[in-house]
């Protein structure tokens, strides 16, 4: 999830049995890593060939591992490694990166650090709120305290930045939650707050600052997004409450800006030539030439805290009332609405024609997306508070709470 926070309940297994479960196996494209918030393309679209969509105490839980701390962040998957960030301690100042073997659930390594920035947050959130990112060679773990840790895939430290150590006023005491994105060798972080507000591009190899931009001094929890511009070159999108700006990932140079009233929690995404912006509901921009043009705005596509997802054909949002809405990506015309129920911090994921939604109480619902309706075809219950967006890889689903990491796999029943 993204300002991933959440409250949870309990007893996963019992609840699973009680609620039963459902789902069929759905087919998608190729198995792939899940290296960042909202997956490989940052769109919420899974590329796995199939996903397990039926699980219960006795079915399809490949493993369940304990976590050493809290965290609304999402798991990421790199090869056979599942990486999770956590925070712990009386002041949430112990920050951790934990790596599990995707096959067995065995903890491969764990690294701990002392936060160097502010660690206060709303009780529902935690220091480990941002989702880590990977470029396939390294892991970049970011925290609300604005500590940025770079490890190789075996847990060897590459470098460590304390951005609030460098800029002591950065942060807020509700808790920061913006997740980093890695593009063209830059780790891009967005640290927008009332005091020292900035975005930064950091050399992925050395941890040195490539660029730093002043950003609006106000609340913002949204995450940067990467996409290709009209000329095929990568760009980074930075969403602030009053504008969206696009930047060269290497230099930080601003390429264009689009002024509007944006949301501060759900995050922008880019897919193809489209920019899906949580602004006035959803504002769909199309990239052409040197500036974006607006395709449509729809206040019927209002987002809650979960971010939108889009496969280029349809846009999906969950609003604050727990209603999942699907609209045509090109026109904004609503295709269907379905009440899922609950409060969502975790962003849904799309696999083939199915959308998996997990609310903050850990109740998962699977919705089959049709031309004119979204049909709930299954549900299950983790029994714990879930804030993190699920990850998928090699046909398996990875979900984390404050206490546990689950692998759910159609091929691996216990």
């Amino acid at each position, binding site marked *: 999830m993204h300002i991933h926070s959440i409250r949870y309940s309990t007893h996963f297994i019992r609840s699973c049995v009680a609620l039963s479960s459902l789902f069929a196996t759905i087919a998608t494209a190729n198995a792939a890593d899940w290296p960042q918030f909202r997956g490989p393309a940052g769109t919420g679209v899974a590329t796995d060939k199939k996903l397990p969509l039926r699980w219960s105490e006795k079915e399809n839980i490949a493993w369940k591992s304990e976590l050493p701390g809290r965290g609304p962040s999402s798991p990421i998957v790199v090869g056979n490694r599942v990486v999770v960030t956590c925070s712990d*301690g*009386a*002041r949430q100042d112990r920050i951790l990166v934990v790596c599990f073997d995707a096959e067995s659930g065995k903890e491969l*390594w*764990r*690294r*701990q*650090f*002392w936060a*160097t920035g502010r660690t*206060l*947050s*709303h009780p529902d959130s935690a220091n480990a709120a941002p989702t880590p990112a990977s470029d396939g060679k390294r892991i970049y773990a970011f925290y609300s305290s604005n*500590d940025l*840790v770079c*490890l190789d895939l075996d*847990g*060897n*430290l*590459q*470098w*460590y*930045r*304390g951005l609030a*150590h*460098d800029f002591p*006023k950065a942060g*807020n*005491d*509700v*808790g920061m939650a913006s997740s980093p994105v890695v593009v063209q060798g830059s780790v891009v972080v967005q640290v927008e*707050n*009332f*005091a020292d507000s900035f975005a930064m591009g*950091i*050399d992925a190899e*050395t*941890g*040195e*600052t490539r660029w730093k931009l002043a950003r609006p001094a106000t*609340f913002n929890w949204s995450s940067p997004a990467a996409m290709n511009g009209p000329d095929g070159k990568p760009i980074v999108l930075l969403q602030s409450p009053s504008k969206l700006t696009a930047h060269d990932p290497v230099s930080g140079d601003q390429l264009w800006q689009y002024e509007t009233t944006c949301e501060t929690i759900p995050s922008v995404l880019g897919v193809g030539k489209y920019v899906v912006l949580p602004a006035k509901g959803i504002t769909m921009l199309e990239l052409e030439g040197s500036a974006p043009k607006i395709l449509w705005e729809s206040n019927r596509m209002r987002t809650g805290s979960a971010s939108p997802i889009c496969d280029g054909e349809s846009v999906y949002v969950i609003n604050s009332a727990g209603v999942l809405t699907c609209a045509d990506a090109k026109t904004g015309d609503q295709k269907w609405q379905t009440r899922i129920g609950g409060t969502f911090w975790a962003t849904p994921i799309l696999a083939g024609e199915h959308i998996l939604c997990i609310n903050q109480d850990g109740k998962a619902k699977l919705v089959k997306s049709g031309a004119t309706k979204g049909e709930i075809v299954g549900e299950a219950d983790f029994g714990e508070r879930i804030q993190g967006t699920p990850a998928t890889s090699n046909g398996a689903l990875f979900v984390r709470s404050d206490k546990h990491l689950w692998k759910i796999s159609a091929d691996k029943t216990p």
Partner: protein
Amino acid sequence: MNWILKPLASRIAVAVAFIAGLHAMKAATTQAADTVDATSLLTRINAVGPEGKGHRDATKAWQTLATADAKQIPEILAGMEPKNVLANNWIRSAVETIAARQLATGGKLPQSDLEKFLQDTRNAPRARRVAYELISQIDPPAGARLIAGMLNDPSIELRRDAIASHIAKAEKLEEQGGGPNALAAYRTAFNAARDVDQIKEIAEKLKKLGEQVNLPSHFGFVMNWQLIAPFENVNRSGFDVAYPPESEIKLDATYTGKDNAKVAWIKHTTTDDFGAVDINKTIAKHKGAIAYAYAELVADKPMPVELRLGSTCANKIWLNGELLTANHVYHAGGGIDQYVGSGQLKAGTNRILLKIAQNEQTEEWAQDWQFQLRVCDAIGTAVLSRDRVATTTK
């Protein structure tokens, strides 16, 4: 492949695997057995600074340091400089890497040396904490034995675990019906506790056992204040305006405040267990306004202190006219010890001045105009005024 070749291929594969395994074992053994020049490596790592300064050299040094023999862990931990918070994390991860490799290959950690390191309070608190965690990992009973004696440890992390252990012991005594013993154990834990959650937890236990608990004194909250408000802060314009209290403290003076109203100092004593002062109730509710709060603290001798403020409003803290911290942040979360200003008390009367700025947000959650301040040392031990007057809390 025909049936004759299959066994041969298998044998070759086994041989290759065996040789590769020998190489891998040799590499691992060599890597684990390296004795490195820790001092020079640590110097290079301790040179890391803001903005990635020193990273390139530190990364190379780290890669060598992480190959050190596990026997060198205490030596490496000794290289942690208490105030070098960035480098501490580099060093910690090197130690974790060395220890994990050693244990994964069936080796042992230098437990005896780690215990000596832990018990020497001259070593950096965080370095001692790492030593304790390693000991607890390889020998949990030893960790429990050692931590039990660290109730008043200068390391806040070690102290916390010691207090948790002591609370558990008191709870056991309570369950066994040992009223006076349980009470004494809780009282001991309370006196040593410095973390807010533990203090609250033990205070509840003591209260249930009929024991009086003075939370404000334990924390060091300042309870007696002089307040003056409102001064102008429309459009957050007053945060950097030096209104008269910033240049003079005259408690009998009157000034022109917001909207040309006359403002004067009033005396206020909070009755909140956690020292909270609600300006909306004490003065009046104003938006776009500044309040000042003044208090004195009499010290026997000079000493470093922390002035720890909790406030959802923008704020500044001065000690004896020196600005310790300024935070132009409104309604972005709050809590005890939210902002920390480090300063130096002088012997005699010390002047504490706060500026608490309210903005004009209209949301329900943005109406608080309050603060709480405590004076303590670096680990949270209360520093009380010599003339502190006992106050009553509700």
